[in-house]
């Protein structure tokens, strides 16, 4: 007689072991057919299990998913991705210097945000996670504004109420980032439902990590999107790691995350997340499907979190240090750069030049942001601001508490 054995998902490699990505199901660039965006949900089942890729190892765009972008658009994409990486590196350093309390890099995942933002229209509403700074940069929110948020200084868009990286922009239609995972997923669906109720053509798009698909909000979002055929794109950024938790613990073993789309009744696409062209094409496909009134698409972008989870994390404690070097889908920035070079539209020296230009841009913005103070130096936000925006109008009990604090601050430090 046998008894059931508990299955504990295996992690392919731990520190000191050789990286092992044999679990990853791949496909060749250009291998998969591209059905019309109006296709029935069931017709996407294979696309949800396989991997949509456009750029091959030589930087050549292949197959029907090639969005056939002009060189100017490709260069723009490269610029936003490089800007994201440089911004991330610089802000990470400022955290190490003690200028900001916390930072989250998107190193290795830049294409996921930048390509999607560029494929959508500027009126579409985006619900980012905390590793989607590329959305803000591709929508050209000013660097200084983002940095002032990181510094919690007098120009902080959040008035000192949020951890660094929890940006927003009403003007650029970027929803306020929550530190709670997956909560924005059903909200994006509700936003899209409202657009449809009002008879507007704008769609919504949201991003969460593969780890967050474990949360009920993911399932609520998918279900509501299916039931009401909401014009929304639901993106799962599968970067393999949720802090130290491998994607197998979110249910990724032998099963794609995108497959949950057709499972529930929405289209699903599994996409090479380090392939700018593939992410662009998949987003474009999902957007036209949503605008045609055919509802949501669940897009899984397969990528790798090349950096730490955040500045409070040390990944060398739970995965091999050299893992990113063995990642089969490479570096998204290098791949787009090589594509442009293969097209004869770009060179290493132009790339170095662009890199220097963007370094200067970031450095100048930082200098400017610092003139408005930091958490520890210079001008400070008025602590009385903590009492406003709890409600539209400040109720009597908060007015009283604000006055109490003001009185205390007149005479001494509140601590």
């Amino acid at each position: 007689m046998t008894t059931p054995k508990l299955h504990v998902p295996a992690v392919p490699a731990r520190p000191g072991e050789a990286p092992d990505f044999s679990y990853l199901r791949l496909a060749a660039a250009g291998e998969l057919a591209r059905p019309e965006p109006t296709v029935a949900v069931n017709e996407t089942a294979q696309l949800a299990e396989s991997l949509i890729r456009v750029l091959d190892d030589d930087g050549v765009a292949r197959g029907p998913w090639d969005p056939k972008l002009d060189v100017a658009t490709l260069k723009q994409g490269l610029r936003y991705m490089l800007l994201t990486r440089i911004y991330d590196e610089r802000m990470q350093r400022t955290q190490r210097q003690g200028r900001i309390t916390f930072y989250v890099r998107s190193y290795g995942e830049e294409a996921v945000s930048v390509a999607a933002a560029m494929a959508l229209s500027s009126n579409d509403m985006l619900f980012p996670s905390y590793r989607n700074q590329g959305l803000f940069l591709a929508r050209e929110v000013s660097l200084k504004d983002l940095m002032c948020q990181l510094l919690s200084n007098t120009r902080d868009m959040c008035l000192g109420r949020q951890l660094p990286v929890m940006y927003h922009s009403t003007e650029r239609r970027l929803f306020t980032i929550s530190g709670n995972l997956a909560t924005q997923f059903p909200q994006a669906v509700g936003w899209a439902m409202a657009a449809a109720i009002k008879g507007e053509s704008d769609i919504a798009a949201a991003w969460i990590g593969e780890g967050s698909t474990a949360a009920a909000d993911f399932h609520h979002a998918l279900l509501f999107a299916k039931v009401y055929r909401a014009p929304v794109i639901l993106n799962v950024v599968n970067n393999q790691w949720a802090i130290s938790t491998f994607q197998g613990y979110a249910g990724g073993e032998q099963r794609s995350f995108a497959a949950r789309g057709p499972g529930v009744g929405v289209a699903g696409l599994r996409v090479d997340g380090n392939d700018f062209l593939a992410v662009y094409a998949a987003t474009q496909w999902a957007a036209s499907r949503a605008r045609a009134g055919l509802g949501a698409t669940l897009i899984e972008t397969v990528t790798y979190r090349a950096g730490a989870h955040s500045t409070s994390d040390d990944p060398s404690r739970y995965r091999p240090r050299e893992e990113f070097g063995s990642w089969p889908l490479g570096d998204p920035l290098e791949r787009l750069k090589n594509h442009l070079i293969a097209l004869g539209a770009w060179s290493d020296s132009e790339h170095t030049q662009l890199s220097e230009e963007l370094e200067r841009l970031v450095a100048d913005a930082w200098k400017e942001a610092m003139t408005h103070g930091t958490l520890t130096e210079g001008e400070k936000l008025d602590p009385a601001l903590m009492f406003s925006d709890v409600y539209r109008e400040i109720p009597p009990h908060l007015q009283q508490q604000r006055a109490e604090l003001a009185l205390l601050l007149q005479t001494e430090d509140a601590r």
Partner: protein
Amino acid sequence: MTAMNMVQALNSAMDVMLERDRRVVVLGEDVGYFGGVFRVTDGLQKKYGAHRVLDTPIAEGGIVGAAIGMGVNGLRPVAEIQFADYIYPAYDQIVSELARLRYRSAAAFTAPLTIRTPCGGGIRGGQTHSQSPESVFAHVSGIKTVMPSNPYDAKGLLIAAIEDDDPVIFFEPKRLYNGPFDGDPDKPAESWAGHPLGEVPEGYYSVPIGKAAIAREGSALSIVTYGTMVHVCLAAAAAEGVDAEIIDVRSMMPLDIDTLAASVEKTGRCLIAHEATRFAGFGAELSASLQERCFWSLEAPIMRVAGWDTPYPHAFEWQYFPGKKRVQQAIRQLLNIEA
């Protein structure tokens, strides 16, 4: 004026607001074609269409999550959670998101959402249809918490909630839907017909959120209460023949502490009564705030009558429910009357 019970009054509030404001939508489990398990949304889908009165999947977290997104996109959703006992799957969306959107984004994003939910006991509903979770919402900064005790207030407060730019959790004491209830289950059920607060204007009006009402003026002691317990306390004071001042809190947040404190300063004695469990219940906040304000006017310690600190038991409902006898006993204790 028309005679309405609380169900009809609430229905009328949503009818008025759906008619007046294109942005208002109603969503929840069974609220559409069927009109809600308590009939509160009866006829609204037929009148305003399935795009404005939406039946939803059975997922409270999804209902509130989606309603937040709708609110952000310019609608004024009225979400029904079928029983307050089922609201907890939505708690994260309410506490971490709805309550803080305005704050965390420095007012860049807001969701003017009303969440209606039937609460309270006295209907033989057991532990999954009888809870009074108002204190776990009143505790959260960024949302308003309201509970009416009669049809007139129910309609006026619900209209005020829908018009409010802040999110409102709107508790409906379900034992009062069809008539006032004084806590005696053996008496024939009363109806709202003939009750002065069962006379409700058919059109638009509102009752301001954040204002308590004096349900009965008096001078011997102040009874601070809300929801079904307003009627239990009225009956208890009458049975004792005591000139109690009975205050219907109506809104836990914002709390009209001035009206409450003025009464306690006048009478010098205060009893707080609610159905919810006592430990860390809303009565604890009332008691603390009132003694801070009124300590030197008090002739006796502030007392509380509340649900026992257990889950709501099915078979022992009438030993559990804080009925007339327990309120009378507390009144006698406060007034030093020999039993």
